[in-house]
């Protein structure tokens, strides 16, 4: 494997790991249910994307496979993350989860 590929893989792994960590910190730090919804659906998407990209580079550099399955995993993740976030938000509105007091606007009655 060329040194350039190694640097790229390491950088992407650190980048992805850092973003996933920030997403997890967000889950602990953000004040109410709806704001916590933002952490896992976003920061983590970029984190997993970067880790998948490093996996693609690794297996291409090793000359094993072009790594289409990693790209498929990323596509599935991008397709399913908004749906689960949407379902969580709908369920929260249905049972009337309390919002942060400084929230502008109101959720809909379900």
């Amino acid at each position, binding site marked *: 494997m060329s040194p350039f590929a190694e640097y790229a893989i390491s950088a992407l792994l650190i980048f992805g790991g850092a973003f996933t960590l920030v*997403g997890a910190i967000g889950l602990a730090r953000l004040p*109410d249910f709806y*704001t916590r919804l933002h*952490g896992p659906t*976003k920061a983590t998407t*970029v984190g997993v994307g970067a880790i998948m990209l490093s996996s693609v580079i690794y297996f291409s550099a090793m000359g094993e496979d072009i790594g289409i399955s990693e790209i498929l995993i990323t596509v599935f993740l991008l397709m399913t*993350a908004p749906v689960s976030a949407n379902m969580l*938000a*709908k369920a929260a509105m249905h049972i009337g989860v309390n919002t942060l007091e400084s929230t502008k606007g109101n959720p809909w009655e379900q």
Partner: protein
Amino acid sequence: MFDRLSFPQPWLSLILFTTWQILSDGVSGGSVVLGLILAWLIPQMTHGFWPERPAFVKTWRMPAYILRVLKDIVAASFSVAWLILSPRKPRPAFINYPLKLEHPLAISILASTISLTPGTVSADVSDDKKTLLIHALDATSDQEVIDTIHNRYEKPLMEMFQ
């Protein structure tokens, strides 16, 4: 009887078949057979969820849109990460977004885009499909969020679907 043996969504069947070949680590006799079964069975089972055919008119605009969304996901992820780590409190807001798109598939693409781009989650769509409820993590003004979504995402989608 023939209805049971047909492929109600040829494109969906094709995508399912191709995806299965890629996932199963190389094309073999077994993967082709199982791929054909899945390509037939899944559209048959989900038939009721597809009320009408998706009307893509300008498919060639899609790659540019996907690239723009990917770029925005990365760029805006940094601002959310910064917000999580900074001591400042977020300013969350529920925003009623007036939809101009009419096609159900276009609306679901827009809602998914809003959920994927950091800072906003689409929470619900009204029964008459004219309003989208968005939760924004850190919004200075409602109008600013509405304008950004309209100009960056809804306009390209309107061009694609009309």
